[in-house]
């Protein structure tokens, strides 16, 4: 029993079409007067992975939540368009959106300990989307949940089915989160800093696991990360966010190797590399939400800023497959 979403009849399933799985155009999100996301443009092909990189407060998590439909009017105001498989998400009815969540679009939370309900067993929580979206019987749900737990590398899954979240380690909990997000074989997986809350030693494992599962399902994924290098390593494309705007976007090796936007360059030089002697932080701070500068939001901290930067927001210039939002690219 698959979900019955109102799909665009011209959607990507037509053979040979290059219709993106996810297409975000001029998408803005406002909370009251504050413009949290400003004119975001993204496209994601089926099977592609995108890394959303930026520092805290850049709006990456907000974008992820908006994509899965957990930020909607009247709490916030949305402008622009988000299309998933051709369906306009901003206009979607809540009931229809619900059929997508946990089903065709999955979300992995950063803090697995907090994202698991302490009063229910992990088996019950994994089985929830199985029941809601796939309508599996109780026995089937247990079997499927066991299989899912096995696929995310949880040892002795049958025993663990009836365990409560607090009885598992942080790494196990995150694996459970992954299992829940992947339960209905989503076409789009959103992962919000999936390894930030884990020990360094497990981070690589979990990252590998997610990538492996995503590839196995042929799904697309959006990874929200704050680490540029990790993003480049793990994703096909990278989009760098600053203060609610996408400042640079493109294939990850190219963006990492030769960043064009001053902010991306700054991010790269913030990281300590082998052989480098100095750490070069980006001066200044992200402006508060209610005091965003007109024009380019990065201008106050940009070494290249000129007058025009404070007046007009730079348009995204496309250059060999990349987009950069800056007046002074060289």
């Amino acid at each position: 029993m698959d979900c019955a979403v109102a799909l665009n009849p011209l959607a990507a399933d037509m053979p040979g079409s290059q219709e993106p799985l996810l297409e975000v155009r001029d998408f803005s999100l406002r909370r009251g007067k504050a413009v949290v996301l400003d004119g975001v443009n993204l496209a994601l092909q089926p099977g592609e992975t995108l890394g959303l990189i930026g520092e805290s407060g850049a709006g990456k998590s907000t974008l992820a939540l908006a994509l899965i439909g957990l930020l909607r009017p009247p709490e916030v105001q949305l402008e622009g368009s988000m299309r998933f498989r051709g369906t306009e998400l901003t206009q979607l009815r809540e009931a229809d959106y619900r059929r997508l969540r946990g089903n065709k679009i999955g979300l992995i939370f950063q803090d697995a300990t907090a994202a698991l309900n302490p009063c229910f067993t992990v088996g019950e929580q994994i089985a929830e989307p199985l029941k809601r979206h796939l309508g599996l019987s109780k026995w089937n749900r247990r079997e499927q949940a066991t299989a899912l737990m096995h696929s995310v590398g949880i040892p002795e899954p049958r025993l663990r089915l009836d365990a409560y979240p607090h009885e598992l380690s942080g790494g196990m909990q995150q694996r459970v989160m992954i299992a829940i997000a992947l339960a209905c074989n989503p076409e789009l997986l959103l992962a919000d800093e999936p390894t930030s809350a884990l020990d360094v030693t497990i981070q690589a494992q979990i990252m590998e696991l997610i990538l492996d599962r995503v590839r196995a399902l042929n799904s697309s994924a959006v990874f929200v990360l704050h680490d540029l290098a990790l993003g480049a390593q793990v994703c096909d494309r990278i989009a760098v966010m600053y203060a609610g705007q996408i400042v640079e976007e493109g294939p990850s090796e190219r963006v990492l190797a030769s960043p064009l936007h001053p902010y991306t360059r700054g991010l790269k030089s913030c990281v300590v590399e082998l052989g480098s002697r100095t750490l070069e932080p980006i001066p200044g701070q992200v402006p508060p939400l209610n005091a965003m500068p007109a024009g380019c939001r990065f201008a106050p901290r940009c070494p290249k800023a000129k007058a025009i930067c404070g007046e007009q927001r730079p348009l995204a210039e496309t250059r060999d497959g990349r987009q950069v939002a800056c007046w002074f690219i060289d």
Partner: protein
Amino acid sequence: MSDALNITATPDSQWKRRFMQPLLRQRSAMVGLAIIALYVVAAVFAPWLATHDPTAQDLMASLQGPSAAHWLGTDSYGQDLYSRLLYGAQLALIIGFASVALGLVAGVAIGLTAGLMGGRTEWVLMRIVDGLLAFPELILAMAFMAVLGLGTENVVYALALSFVGPFARMTRGDVLQVKNQPYIEAAQLMGVSTAAIIWRHVLPNVVSPILVQAGMRVSIAILLESGLSFLGIGVVPPTPDWGLMISEGRGFITMAPWISGVPGVALAILLVALNLLGDGLRDAFDPTTQKDA
């Protein structure tokens, strides 16, 4: 309904709500305070504001409704309800505060001793407190009244005894917490005398939450006091006590509803006002409840 649920979706929500709710709380607490102030004024100036002697009987004028002579009517003995109301406020507030104060002092003393001395003293004292706390307050108060006999003074003692338990337990808990703080140890190492440590470090930190509790307890004290009097186990007639008045008015509920009605409304309003103030105080002192915005 979905719009209300959306609040959970925003990563840092509650910015607008944070403004509205504390205002609401503050306002209601202020309203409570204003009402209580009114009662205090009535109580303090009762002798001047009253029109009659509250215990003066005038059987000829009994069971009358509000009139020029008796502003709020009379009861079955012809006593003036308005005057009895005012003196009733006086009595309620006095008993309320006195019993709480007494219970506070005794309870804090026991809690301090238990917490500071530790060892066997603490064990014995706390078991006694446990025993006290094992009974519901009203039952305890009733038992004490049975032993002590009726009357206003005894009501104060009985209630005070019932309050010793909660205060003692609270104080001891706070003392234990404070005792283990680094600054106590620092003071000890510096050679400050034990008495000075208690006076200057332990007491101030223990006293403020206790005082907030005490404030909230006054409403319970007044409720218990009027309850006991209502049952006939509190003050003795003809003392002007709201509980007593309500009880006396029961039999006349159809023909003279004001006899129970007037003191009842007065009591209800005072208790609500005390509760509002107590809530406000509690929220003001407890930063975690700010989350409820």
